[in-house]
């Protein structure tokens, strides 16, 4: 065992895994340390919607016993994890940040959750999110927003802001996310953490409460590229329960992260992602990162993807269309909230459905259901949904053209650092623009990753760099990400998260 910090919550998942493997520390100790941390800081951050202390400790104990009995366990066995509340967990509440699922206890595990359990990761709790993953700030969670540990008045990104703020406030070493238009990558960028959206089909969607089926992709979140790769390897792989799942082994992401080699790789800077609307500090950190990649031996060129300009518009037709249909099942008939309409004596099933959906869905969800219903309507279908699908094909073509010239593409992950809570709540368009750089990858199904690029000069807040690779070449993200991360950490003199302010005077070692 090497240099495990006294405060176990500060350790990387990789370091914890090593320490657990050598029995230098037990899973119960590691899990308890994180539970203590949650008790100390989550009142301020509000990253968790549900903490399962008992369940997590029971899983930790079981792993410790199996290890004690000499069983050979998977790499991350015993490392606790936080699960985004969009994934079904048998016996644990799953709300998707919505009132309409308040109190629902799924009778089954998502495939990803099954894989986590089989790999022996104690599930410590469920993380906050924008309702049904619709948003970039967690402000659309029906249970209140999560806060950015860098500045509690600011957003932790969204929809996976619960998972990003869990990681940035050391309330778990690993977390899961889902990314439909940037919900893993943008929260990672604004909290100085790491997140990967794998190739579409690379991680099973079975048990992910669907937002937009053709765009949704689950992925790993961590504080380092290697940690993220280790989790990616656990989550990924073929699932016969998901027809869109890729029938191939998980790409060699861990090997790539460990090798951290970009020598000879061709890196394309996407011309259309990074100009107008990008904060100067974000832009500056991005340029430095690109220069570093060149120093590390990569060849950097500028690449144009002209149709990316239409990505946002196409996305906001395809996503609401699919969402309007996916969310139709929330009708009070079989599970979740049931609301009886006011002033109706003997309400019909339809009246109960309407009253429940009115009370149970928040304004952003309603906005997108209405948008999608409209876009799919007969007479409008071709102009909206049909055209959007054509744009989608053009964007995929842009990617294909780009990947003829380069091995990976890079851009800033989000145009700005974390904005203040409430700043964009009344302006959906401004909120949507946050995902301008992340959306093309979802439309084309290609993998993407965000890693910290540093702090913006003007506000001292984290910025992220996005790496994109061709479909099924997820390992390239880790080659580039790990190489760049090592160079940046070297330059910073330590992990960037060490610079985050301590939360509310809580001593880092508390509970350890």
């Amino acid at each position, binding site marked *: 065992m090497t240099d495990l910090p006294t405060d176990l919550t500060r350790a990387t998942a990789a370091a914890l895994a090593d320490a657990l493997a050598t029995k230098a520390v037990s899973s119960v100790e590691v899990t308890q340390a994180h539970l203590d941390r949650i008790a100390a800081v989550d009142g301020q951050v509000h990253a968790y919607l549900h903490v399962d202390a008992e369940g997590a400790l029971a899983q930790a104990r079981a792993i410790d016993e199996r290890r004690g009995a000499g069983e050979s366990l998977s790499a991350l066995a015993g490392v606790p994890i936080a699960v985004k509340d969009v994934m079904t967990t048998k016996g644990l509440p799953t709300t998707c940040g919505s009132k309409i699922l308040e109190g629902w206890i799924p009778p089954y595990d998502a495939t990803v959750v099954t894989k986590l359990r089989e790999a022996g990761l104690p599930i410590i709790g469920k993380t906050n999110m924008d309702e049904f993953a619709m948003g970039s700030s967690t402000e659309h969670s029906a249970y209140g927003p999560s806060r950015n540990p860098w500045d509690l008045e600011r957003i932790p990104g969204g929809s996976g802001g619960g998972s990003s703020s869990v990681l940035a406030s050391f309330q778990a070493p690993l977390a899961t996310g889902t990314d439909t238009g940037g919900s893993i990558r943008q929260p990672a960028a604004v909290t100085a953490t790491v997140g990967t959206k794998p190739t579409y089909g690379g991680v099973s969607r079975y048990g992910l409460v669907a937002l937009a089926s053709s765009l949704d992709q689950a992925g790993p979140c961590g504080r380092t590229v290697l940690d993220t790769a280790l989790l990616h390897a656990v989550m990924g792989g073929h699932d016969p329960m998901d027809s869109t799942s890729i029938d191939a082994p998980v790409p060699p992401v861990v090997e790539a992260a460990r090798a951290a080699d970009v020598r000879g790789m061709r890196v394309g800077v996407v011309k259309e992602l990074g100009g107008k609307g990008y904060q100067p500090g974000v832009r500056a950190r991005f340029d430095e990162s690109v220069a570093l990649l060149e120093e590390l031996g990569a060849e950097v060129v500028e690449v144009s993807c002209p149709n990316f300009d239409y990505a946002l518009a196409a996305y906001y037709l395809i996503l609401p269309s699919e969402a309007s249909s996916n969310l139709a099942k929330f009708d009070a008939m*079989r599970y979740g909230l049931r609301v009886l309409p006011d002033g109706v004596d003997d309400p019909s099933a339809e009246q109960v459905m309407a009253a429940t959906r009115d009370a149970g869905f928040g304004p952003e969800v309603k906005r997108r259901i209405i948008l999608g219903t409209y876009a799919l309507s007969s007479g409008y279908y071709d102009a909206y949904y049909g055209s959007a699908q054509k744009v989608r094909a053009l964007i995929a073509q842009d990617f294909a053209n780009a990947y003829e010239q380069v091995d990976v593409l890079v851009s800033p992950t989000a145009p700005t650092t974390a904005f203040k809570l409430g700043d964009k709540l009344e302006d959906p368009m401004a909120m949507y623009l946050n995902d301008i750089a992340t959306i093309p990858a979802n439309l084309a199904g290609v993998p993407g990753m965000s890693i910290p690029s540093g702090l913006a000069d003007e506000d001292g807040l984290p910025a992220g760099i996005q790496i994109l690779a061709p479909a099924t070449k997820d390992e390239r993200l880790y080659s580039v990400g790990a190489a760049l991360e090592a160079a940046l950490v070297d330059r910073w003199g330590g992990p960037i998260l060490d610079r985050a302010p301590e939360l509310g005077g809580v001593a880092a070692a508390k509970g350890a």
Partner: protein
Amino acid sequence: MTAVATDAVMDYDEAMAKFDPVMGLEVHVELHTATKMFCGCPTGFGAEPNSQVCPVCLGLPGALPVVNEKAVESAMRIGLALNCEIAEWCRFARKNYFYPDMPKNFQTSQYDEPIAYGGYLDVELEDGSIYRVEIERAHMEEDTGKSLHIGGATGRIHGADHSLVDYNRAGIPLIEIVTKPMVGAGERAPEVAKAYVSALRDLLRALDVSDVKMEQGSMRCDANVSLRPKVGDPLSSEQLAVPLGTRTETKNVNSLRSVERAVRYEISRHAAILDAGGSVLQETRHWHEDTGITTSGRVKSDAEDYRYFPEPDLVPVAPTREMVEALRATLPEPPGQRRKRLQSDWGYSDLEMRDVMNAGAVELIEETVAAGASAGAAKKWWLGEPSRRANAEGQDIVTYAAALGFTPAHVAELDALVTSGRLNDSMARQVLDGVLAGEGTPTAVADARGLELVKDDGALEAAVDKVIETNPDVAAKIRDGKVQAAGALIGQVMKEMKGQADAGKARELILAKLQ
């Protein structure tokens, strides 16, 4: 409360004098695959409510569909048997609408890319003529759950106290077979409709893809009917040029007889409306089996918009041509063709063949003949006592015989006992009684009951001599050439022999002695 007829109807013949009917039939067939369309739940009929469900067919958040390949195969076989093209590439689509017994509030179906399209089915009418029904398409979809409305008198949602939903049926594979507008049937439209559904049922049964039990809902028919003014013969070019009238869709017509009656009723109802200068409302209609009428369902309007779009949770279905040809090779002989072949092989008259068909004994006779019996004997035995008893029990002959363990091999054995001369006809009937009573195989029954024609010609001859002697008048008539009088003597000989004689042989002896 039964539905009350409030609609005016015109006499059918009068309606036919004034209008030309056009039909379109949509038939939903539940496939009898072991598992559901998109999950692994079993599909058995009549199970405990909500005992055959899982996250997928309950539409739980997060669950995803996976296509049942067996169902796709059945869909393609149905398409091929209906002479359709099989799509090289097609997708599922979501049909979006809210209904309490539909778990996801969308039905996974197919929209503009059906698995099979552009076929036909030739249907034989009662007079032997053929009507070709053009098939628009056959597509795959999933069934919904079943609502049970409790309280209220009609079992319908109106007036009910509360409703229960059984999701066992949700997700059972369905094939919807849609005809093109059926024109030119004229006054025979109701007969054509019935004959089509009947022929389709036979075909699906021969394909062994569905139970096709209309009474259990595994085959359901929606009948679209419209009328246009009659301007000439049903098939004349001027008649075919008249634009179609407004149609109504009568839902869930669940027996062959009802198909005929419902079409006939709607024709009469439309005719009354149109004749009075009114216009038919485009709507769905409910069929009432008891009163034989339809009542208004929901109005179909432009407001009904299913917002179809390609199902993103499923990948396209793209059967290779090799796969299609391999499936084509598994198709059974078309029922109509098979019937003609068997009739000719067996030498039955049209009437005899129809009797056999109506008795549902075609397969039994086929197997009996294969086991060595003559076609005539096979028909005689199956349509006799076993059929009579099955009818009395209200069962079909196949089920009845199977329950008794009475097989084509038994019938063939019985026939062999007769042709070999061991039994005569009346003895064979006794043996049959014994077999049906479960006493064993025909040979075992004959042995146990001591039934055997007397082989000793001496005893028979003595009996003949005795009967001739005691009946001189009859004997004289036969000597005079009235051969038919021999019957009286044969009866007496048989009596002498206590039935255990070969009547044919007795006749030969009598005639030999008296001519």
